[in-house]
Every structure is written in structure tokens, then in C-alpha cells.
């Protein structure tokens, strides 16, 4: 009998509410990491392109999805679908329990002390906009917001808009030529000072792969009374992230980069901080009592979740974090470090290729951006695509960072738990072909 049929027959026994201690501890018995076995969980990796087998090296853009995630979403829609927190019937109760179970699983995954600290948004961009909006409501002219030049546009533009709305000043960390935050320059210019109200930094750069010293910077932010926001979109998928010890106050990430579905993002926040913040979007679900003369608001997390939330996506995200936990985030991080080191070594053999960011695999995530002399990244990615290899070419939503490195754009290869050494070899071969093609020796 297929598992589909089994799951269709079996009604899961959802509790009315889910508390943290009901979430099963995960990963008791670590399974040895075997990339070939992992790949069988991802049907898409088996497909071919018109140009041969698929070599998917664009996981920092979006990750592929294992069968269990897709099946969890399918099962939800086919067997338990209803709106949440309002339908007084069996399906409504099941859907609500499944949605809240997804929240609890995410909370456990990142080490939150209570599931009410996990807010579901549409994506990481919305989570960061929520921060800028709700956290920024109290800013006044003269206050300072600190970001860095290595941020994704989604951690730049919301703060620019906030600065425009409030008259606050936006300042930023520069990076060194190696692609690390320039902490010395920041200290010299007193970047974080008593006027600083918000510091918002990426944990892992989506372009450079740099892992930033969040705990250290959070301590500096807290010392002046500022709130520390972290864009962990590239970190949570790749490494064990523990919000209890990270030092950050608010952490944003997104499901689709961590083998989960599109359409759902997460903002984790310290409960006491969230409890004091004004709402972001207004509507159903986020209220307590609505009168025509004014309304009161629900406590977190629902205060920040106006309207029908991404229900099936929360179920899918729950399945995703369960999947990642079973493999173990430390094992995934170790695999990524190994593949990244192998790729850096291979890329170093291509004449003229310049890696943006750390060239040593130390404090570095699994994304490598590079340039080739006289070949534009669009042409690089097109040529690689002609060999079935998927990479990203462009500014990767980080135009200021590219400007800092004096280039207009770059090509990015990014890896994940299913990436093999053979795929890196295909990339290196493809790049050699690209260089020959545009060098005129066809």
C-alpha cells in the first residue's frame, strides 16, 4: 500500500493546542550523511534538461524540495484543509492544530523558548519590513539605524524607507577587500554609538558567503541600548542557528531556501520585545476587539499575522525542518563546508577568475560569487545552462556590494545538502568551456 493512501486514511490526532514540550526531540540517532541517499529524496534532481542531467547550483536563490515536504502539503490540502483559528468544525480544528504545530516545529528548530516567538510572514522580505515598520515606529530625527554594504536589497530598502519616514539617519558597515565586515573602520568612526537605535545585519552574505560575527555585534548594539535585527535567510538553511544564544533580538528567514515551500517566511523575536511592538498590517486575526472608534490587538505572534496566514505552507515548513533535523544541521554544515572548499579549489584553476569574498573556506557559507574577465555573468550562466548547469548571474539583489567591489554583476554558484563533488567538476568544466567560447577559440 502506498504511503499516500495510508496517510489519507489515518486522521492525525492533533491536540487542541501545541506546546513546546509536545514537539518531539529530533535527531537523537544521527544518520550518517550520505549525499547519494539524500538526493533520492529530491525527485527534481533526477530530471534531465535538453542538455543533459540537471546540475542545480542555485540553492541560495531557492532550494529544491524533498518529497516529504511536497507530500505534507498535499496531505494537508487533500485531507485537512480549512481556515485557521475561526472555523468551529473538525477540519478547522485540524487545520489550526497543523498550522500551530508548524510554528512549534520552527520554534524548536531555531532554539526559541516558546512558539509564540515565531511569527509567520510571506517571506523574509516581509519579516524585515515588519521589523522596520513596527520597531521603527518610535524613531525620531537624530536616531541612527546601522546596516552594512553587504546586505540584500531587502535589508536595505525597508530601512531607507524608515529613515525617510522618521528623519532617522541610515549608516552602514563597509567591508574589507576580503569581504569581511570592516570592524576596525566601524570602531574608528563610532558607527555604533548612543544614537544607534537599530542594527540590522545579514548573518551569512548571499553573495560573498561571509559569516558575520553576529554575537559580537549584538553585544555592541545592546551596550548602547539598540535592538539587533538579523537577516538569517542564508544562515538558517545552512547551519545550526540557536536564537537563545545568538544574541539577536529579531531574526528573519524564509522557508523556500531551507527545503520548504515558497510563500512563507519567519520572524523570530524575543517575546518581551514583540509584546511591546505596535502591529504591522491590520486586518483579521491580529485583533482583540474591534469597535468603530478603535481596536485593540492580539498578543504576539497573532498581532503580526493579519489575514488568512500561509497555512499549508506552515505545514510544509514544519515537514522541512523535521527533514533537516533528522539529517542534522551540523552534518549539513559540514557537507557544505567540504563542497565549498572543493569548489574554491577548482575555481582557483580558472585563469583570471576572481572570487568576491573570502577565498578561504573559513567562516564562509555555501555561496561563491565570481567574475571572469571579459565574459558577462549573463553569458556565463547562459553557457552553463547550455550544459544543464543552473547558476545565477546578476547583482543578486546586492547592487551596493557589487559597486563596492567595482563590478556591475557576478556569477554565483551555491550549494546545499544535495550538492556533489561531481556537480562541482561539471561547473569547473563548464567554466573552462565558457572561457574558450568567448575567447574566440570555438
Amino acid at each position, binding site marked *: 500500500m502506498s504511503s499516500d493512501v495510508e496517510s489519507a486514511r489515518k486522521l492525525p490526532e492533533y491536540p487542541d493546542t501545541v506546546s513546546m514540550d509536545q514537539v518531539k526531540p529530533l535527531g537523537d540517532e544521527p544518520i550518517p550523511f550520505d549525499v547519494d541517499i539524500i538526493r533520492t529524496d529530491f525527485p527534481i534532481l533526477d530530471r534531465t534538461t535538453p542538455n543533459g542531467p540537471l546540475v542545480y547550483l542555485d540553492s541560495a536563490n531557492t532550494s529544491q524540495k524533498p518529497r516529504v515536504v511536497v507530500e505534507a502539503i498535499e496531505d494537508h490540502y487533500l485531507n485537512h484543509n480549512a481556515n485557521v483559528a475561526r472555523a468551529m468544525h473538525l477540519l478547522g480544528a485540524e487545520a489550526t492544530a497543523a498550522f500551530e504545530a508548524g510554528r512549534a516545529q520552527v520554534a524548536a528548530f531555531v532554539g526559541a523558548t516558546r512558539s509564540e516567538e515565531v511569527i509567520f510572514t510571506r517571506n523574509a522580505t516581509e519579516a524585515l519590513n515588519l521589523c522596520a515598520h513596527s520597531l521603527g515606529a518610535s524613531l525620531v530625527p537624530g536616531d541612527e539605524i546601522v546596516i552594512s554594504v553587504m546586505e540584500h536589497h531587502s535589508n536595505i530598502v525597508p530601512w531607507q524607507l524608515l529613515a525617510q519616514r522618521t528623519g532617522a539617519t541610515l549608516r552602514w558597515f563597509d567591508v574589507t577587500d576580503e569581504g569581511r565586515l570592516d570592524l576596525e573602520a566601524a570602531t574608528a568612526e563610532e558607527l555604533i554609538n548612543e544614537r544607534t537605535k537599530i542594527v540590522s545585519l545579514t548573518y551569512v552574505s548571499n553573495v560573498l558567503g561571509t559569516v558575520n560575527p553576529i554575537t559580537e555585534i549584538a553585544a555592541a548594539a545592546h551596550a548602547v541600548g539598540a535592538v539587533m535585527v538579523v537577516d538569517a535567510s542564508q544562515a538558517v538553511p545552512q547551519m545550526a542557528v540557536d536564537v537563545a544564544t545568538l544574541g539577536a533580538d529579531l531574526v528573519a528567514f524564509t522557508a523556500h531556501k531551507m527545503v520548504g515551500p515558497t510563500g512563507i517566511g519567519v520572524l523570530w523575536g524575543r517575546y518581551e520585545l514583540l509584546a511591546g511592538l505596535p502591529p504591522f498590517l491590520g486586518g483579521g486575526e491580529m485583533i482583540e476587539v474591534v469597535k468603530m472608534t478603535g481596536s485593540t490587538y492580539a498578543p504576539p505572534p497573532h498581532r503580526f499575522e493579519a489575514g488568512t496566514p500561509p497555512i499549508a505552507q506552515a505545514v510544509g515548513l514544519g515537514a522541512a525542518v523535521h527533514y533537516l533535523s533528522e539529517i542534522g544541521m551540523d552534518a549539513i554544515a559540514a557537507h557544505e563546508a567540504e563542497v565549498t572548499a572543493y569548489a574554491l579549489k577548482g575555481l582557483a584553476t580558472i585563469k583570471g577568475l576572481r572570487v568576491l569574498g573570502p577565498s578561504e573556506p573559513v567562516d564562509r557559507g555555501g555561496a561563491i560569487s565570481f567574475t571572469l574577465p571579459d565574459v558577462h*555573468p549573463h553569458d556565463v550562466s*547562459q553557457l552553463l545552462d547550455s550544459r544543464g548547469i543552473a547558476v545565477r548571474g546578476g547583482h543578486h539583489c546586492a547592487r551596493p556590494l557589487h559597486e563596492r567591489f567595482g563590478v556591475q554583476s557576478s556569477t554565483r554558484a551555491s550549494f546545499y545538502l544535495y550538492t556533489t563533488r561531481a556537480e562541482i567538476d561539471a561547473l569547473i568544466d563548464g567554466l573552462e568551456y565558457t572561457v574558450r567560447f568567448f575567447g574566440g577559440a570555438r
Partner: protein
Amino acid sequence: MKVEELYQEIILDHYRAKHHSGLRDPYEAEVHHVNPSCGDEVTLRVHLDGDTVSDVSYEGVGCSISQASTSVMSDLVIGHSYQHGLGLHQEFLTLMQSKGEIEPDEDRLEDGIAFAGVAKFPARVKCALLGWSAFKDAVIQAQGSTN
């Protein structure tokens, strides 16, 4: 679909040695066009002498398709009436939107027919159109300034 269909030798030749490249005086209009999704950029100037396009000069950063297409466009429009240039723009646009289903007119588009293969790569159509759109925009502005 073979990638060689996209990267015709003519395109690579224009990319390696762009015609009419660089910004020159005099000009009646200068425009700056950007492809926001990839960051390709071109600054383009048009100099009209009556109805005649007597110069198109430009500076751009971008992929081989966008750079070569701008180079071919400048060859085609310089020395002819702006109406002829706008007509070619329309023809090239139609070719790019054809998904590869129409035969380009070599007598009119000359080297431009090398881009027929681009129409089969939807993600690259906007690259091929960058310089042409800038030209059209600049001609319209230049007419406004001379009338």
C-alpha cells in the same frame, strides 16, 4: 536548442569590437536605460541633423547580447532618417517577440538578423532590446528639443 543559435559569430564579433561606442558631442538627447533585473545599463546619445540621425553614441555595461545589439543598431540607424530607424526598431521588436517564428528581413536588418535566435530565449529578449529602446526614447526626446 543549441546555445550556438544564440551566440552567432556576428554577435560575438560585435561584442568584442563594438561599433560607434563611446559618448560624443554634439547631441540633442541623452538617455540612460537600465535593465533592473540584471543591472545592464546603457547611456545613449542621439544627434539629429534635420530628419537624419547623424550620430548615435553610447556607453554601456552588460552582456554580449545587449552590447552587440546596441552596436548593430547604431550601424543600422546612423546616416538614415529617424523614421527609418524607428521603423527598424518596430521590426526588431516584432522579431524579438516572435518566439523564433518569423523570418527576419536581411535586407533591412542586416547584422540584426543574427539576433533571431535570441527570440527563442525569453530571458534574453530584454537584453537584445536594451539599446534599441534607448534609441527610440532618445529620438523622441531629440525631436521634442528640435521642434
